């Protein structure tokens, strides 16, 4: 631990270590402190204390971009399987009613259990994740696409087909479909061959403005703490 704390002290700038390095080592020995985060934060603060506003903002922007890219590109790749339905009327409210009746929480829970989806996620998050992975959109005047994105292409296809089946079943229920909408399967769920990028690039790109914004706030705080020019 002592060795690790000495390494942390090396993160402080040279000018600072020359002046206070030995004192800080003695303080760590006397107090027995193991506050790694406090030392790291102190080192970063001293490193940036002599930086200009522009340099702090630029470095934070780059760090934000790198961190967001690491997170975005470590996310598992997904495959999106799509089916196409033909709808007798172009009444979007009527279609929405059928979709809501088809994709109840209970229905989605049944699919999640049967297909063992999102095994690594807490149970309370799985339905939300599944809803985010489902996409229902109009493809043409009387055509709608229903798709589902998942890490495994075969499971994505099976679930997409199941979702379409639920919509058709709900369509036969007069409560969910009082307008007599007719929905037919035109193209069954395909087995996707290509990985779906999703919002990977968007998420990575968000790191830059987020980092820049953080840099502005940090630079303002550090400049406020800096001694006033005499």
């Amino acid at each position, binding site marked *: 631990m002592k060795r690790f704390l000495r390494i942390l002290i090396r993160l402080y700038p040279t000018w600072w270590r020359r002046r206070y390095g030995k004192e800080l*080592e003695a303080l760590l020995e006397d107090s027995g402190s193991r506050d790694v985060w406090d*030392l790291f934060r*102190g080192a970063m603060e001293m490193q940036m204390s002599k930086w200009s506003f522009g340099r702090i903002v630029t470095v934070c922007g780059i760090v934000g971009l790198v961190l967001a890219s690491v997170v975005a590109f470590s996310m598992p790749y997904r495959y999106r399987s799509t089916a196409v339905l033909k709808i007798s009327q172009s009444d979007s409210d009527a279609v929405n009613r059928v979709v809501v009746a088809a994709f109840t929480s209970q229905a989605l829970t049944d699919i999640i259990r049967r297909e063992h989806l999102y095994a690594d996620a807490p149970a309370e998050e799985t339905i939300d994740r599944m809803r985010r992975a489902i996409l229902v959109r109009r493809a043409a005047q009387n055509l709608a696409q229903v798709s589902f994105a998942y890490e495994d292409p075969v499971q994505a296809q099976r679930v997409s087909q199941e979702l379409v089946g639920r919509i058709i079943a709900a369509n036969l229920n007069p409560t969910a479909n009082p307008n007599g909408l007719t929905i037919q399967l035109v193209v069954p769920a395909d087995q996707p061959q290509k990985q779906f990028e999703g919002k990977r690039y968007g998420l990575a790109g968000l790191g830059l403005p987020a980092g820049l914004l953080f840099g502005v706030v940090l630079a303002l705080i550090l400049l406020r703490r800096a001694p006033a020019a005499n």
Partner: protein
Amino acid sequence: MSDPTLLVLASLAEGDKHGYAMMEDIERFAGVRLGPGTLYGAITRLEERGWIGPVKSRDERRQPYRITAAGQEHLAEQLASLNRVVKTGLSRLKQA
């Protein structure tokens, strides 16, 4: 009162102290245990501002610091300001 620079000044107002002595003293009178990085960040800023300065010592690893006249003036201003806030807050609590 959790501003580390103010806590260090308040500690040195009693007399010269090195880092560990300040840490212990601050914990005693304010109930706040400053981390080593926070304490030395405050010492650095205070020395740059000319509010504290090192005192000659044989042990350079346990360097004592002393509050300067400018530091005392700054501390007095800050404490007077805090005192006004405390008095106002207490009197308003009594009225409520």
